[in-house]
C-alpha cells in the first residue's frame, strides 16, 4: 500500500513518500518518485489509482508552471492548493473522476511553511501534520502524541524514521526558505535504533 507523510515545522515542511510502484502483487519498481515539483518551493505528493496519479499531478504541475510563464511570478502554496482542489472537484462529478490522494507542501515568503491535505473527494485542509495510506492509521496517533509545533528539523526526521511499515525505502524531502532539499533515502535498516524523540 502507498504511503505519504508530511510534517510542518516552524520554518520548514518535511515530506516523505514510499518508493514502490506496484501492480497488484508485484513490485514493479522500488525507486519510484511520487513527488512532483510544482515550483521552486512547492511539492505535490500524489498517490492513488494507477494512471490517475501521474495524469492529474502532471496536469497541475504544467498549469502552475504556465501561470508563472504568463504572469512572471509563481503561485503561492495556498493558491496552488486551492487550484488543485478546484480541479479535483470539477472532475469529481464527471464521468472521469480522478481517484488520487494528495499532500501539497510549500514555503511562502509571507505566510511561511504550509502543508495541505487533500483527498480524492477534494476535501482540502491545512494541517500541521498529515498522512495518507494504511500507514496513516498508525502514524497519526504517534504524531498526535509527539508533535510539538516548535520542533527542529532533526527531531522531526527522527520521528519520521519510526514510520516504516512493510515498505522498503522512502524518499524524504525538506522545503524551507531556500527551496527543496533531498534528504537521504531511508532504508528500513536505519530504523532499528530509533527511540521516541527526547523532548
Amino acid at each position, binding site marked *: 500500500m502507498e504511503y505519504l507523510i508530511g510534517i510542518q515545522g516552524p520554518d520548514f515542511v518535511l515530506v516523505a513518500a514510499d518508493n514502490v510502484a506496484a*501492480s497488484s502483487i508485484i513490485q514493479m*519498481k522500488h525507486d519510484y518518485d511520487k513527488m512532483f515539483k510544482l515550483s521552486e518551493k512547492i511539492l505535490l505528493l500524489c498517490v492513488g489509482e494507477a494512471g490517475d496519479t501521474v495524469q492529474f499531478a502532471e496536469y497541475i504541475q504544467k498549469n502552475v508552471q504556465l501561470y508563472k510563464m504568463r504572469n512572471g511570478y509563481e503561485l503561492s502554496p495556498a493558491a496552488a492548493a486551492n487550484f488543485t482542489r478546484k480541479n479535483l472537484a470539477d472532475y469529481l462529478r464527471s*464521468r472521469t473522476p480522478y481517484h488520487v490522494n494528495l499532500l501539497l507542501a510549500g514555503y511562502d515568503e509571507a505566510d511561511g511553511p504550509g502543508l495541505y491535505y487533500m483527498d480524492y473527494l477534494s476535501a482540502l485542509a491545512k494541517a500541521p501534520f498529515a498522512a495518507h495510506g494504511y500507514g496513516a492509521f498508525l502514524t497519526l496517533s504517534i504524531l498526535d502524541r509527539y508533535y510539538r509545533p516548535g520542533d527542529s528539523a532533526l527531531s522531526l526526521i527522527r520521528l519520521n524514521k519510526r514510520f516504516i511499515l512493510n515498505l522498503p525505502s522512502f524518499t524524504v524531502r525538506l522545503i524551507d526558505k531556500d527551496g527543496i532539499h533531498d534528504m537521504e533515502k531511508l532504508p528500513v535498516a536505519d530504523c532499528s535504533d530509533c527511540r521516541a524523540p527526547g523532548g
Partner: protein
Amino acid sequence: MALQDVCGFLETLDDISPCTYLPNEMGYMWRTPFEFDRDSAFHFLFPPQQCSRKNRAPTLFSSTFSSLSPHQQPFQLSHGTTTLGFIFQDGVIAAADTRASCKGLICCPISQKIMPIHSHLVVNTSGSGADCMLWERILTREMRLYQLRHRKRLSINGAAKLLSTMLHPFKGTNVCVAATLCGWDGEETQDTLQSCMEIADVKEAVEQDSNVSAISDVSAQGGVKMASINEQDEISKDTQALNPTVSNQNTKNVLSTFGGRSGPRVCYVCSDGLQLKGEIISVGSGSPYAYAVLDDGWRWGMTVDEAVALAREAVFRATHWDAYSGNNVDLFHITAHGWRRRDREDLKEEYYREREREKKKIKEREKERQKREGDELVEGEGDIYSVHCG
C-alpha cells in the same frame, strides 16, 4: 413489442444505443445498432463519452453510458502470458511466449506477441489480443507521423507517453492493453558508446556477481541463431528516400532522437494509465516466475549470450509453472544497429532436455552414493550396521 420482451431482444445496453435524431422518450424506444459519432476525424479513437467533451449538448450516448459502471478489472495477473524485457550493456532483450489463451482454451499456440514498431523499437504486448493488435498499429502510425513531421524519431519515453495519453480516455472501459516498449534511443555514434560506458561504470560499481554459468549451458545446447533483419533494411531505405537531409550522417539506418541520452530503454505502459521506466520489466500471469529468474541472473555487464540465455530461461520457467503461458519462445535483441530476431524455439524440446539432464544427474548421484558405500564397506569392519549407516 411483446415478442421482443419475451425473446429478450435488444435487452443489453451493449448492443444498442438510442436514436439521436428522435426526441428523448421516443429515442429510447427505437434503438439503432451501435454507432460512433461520425463527425470527428478520429472517431474510432474515442469512446462515445467523448461527445460531450467537445462542447456539445450531452447526447443520448452520454446519458446511456453514464449508467454503466466502469468494468471491474480482474486481478491484474489474469493476462495469460509471459513477456519480459530488460536492458544491459549491449542493448535490450525482449522475450515472450506464444500462447494465446481464452479462459481454459488455447486459442492459438503460435501467436506473435512481440511486434516491431520501427527499426529500433519493438513492443511486447499482453492483455486482450484484439486491443493489442489495434493499439500497436495506432502507435506505429503515430510514430511514423511524428517522424515525418519532425524529421526525428520519437524517443522510447516519448512513445510511452504518447501511448499512455492515447489510452487515457479509455480508462474504465474494457480496453485491456499492457505493453512493454523495448528499444534503443539515439544516434549510433561515438557518443552512444561513450554514454553506454558511463552507464556501465556506474552499474558495475553497485553490481553483485551472480552465477549465470548454468544458464549459459542451456543456450549452447539450443544453438543460437540470429536472423538478419530484412525489414530493417527496407525501413532504412524508406527513410533515406524521404529524409535526404538526415542522411549526411555516417550511420545509414539510425535517426537521432529528441533530447535525453541515447541508449537502451524499457518502458511499460498499461491501459490503467500506469507508466514505468525501468531496467527489468515482466508482464503477465507468468511474470512472477520470470521476475524470480531475472532478478537472480541479471547484471548490467552481461554478454549477449548470457542475456539471451537468461531471457530464455526466464520464459521457460514461467511457461513451466504457469498454465496460461507456453508453447514457444520468441526473442528479440535490440542494439544501436536495430533489432535482430532469434528463431522461434519450441520449449517442449527444452523441457525434455531438462528432464534428460535431471535423469543423468540422478544417475551420477546414485553412482557416487554407491561408491561411497563401497568405500565404507572396505574401510569398516564389515559390521552389518555400518552398511545401513552409509
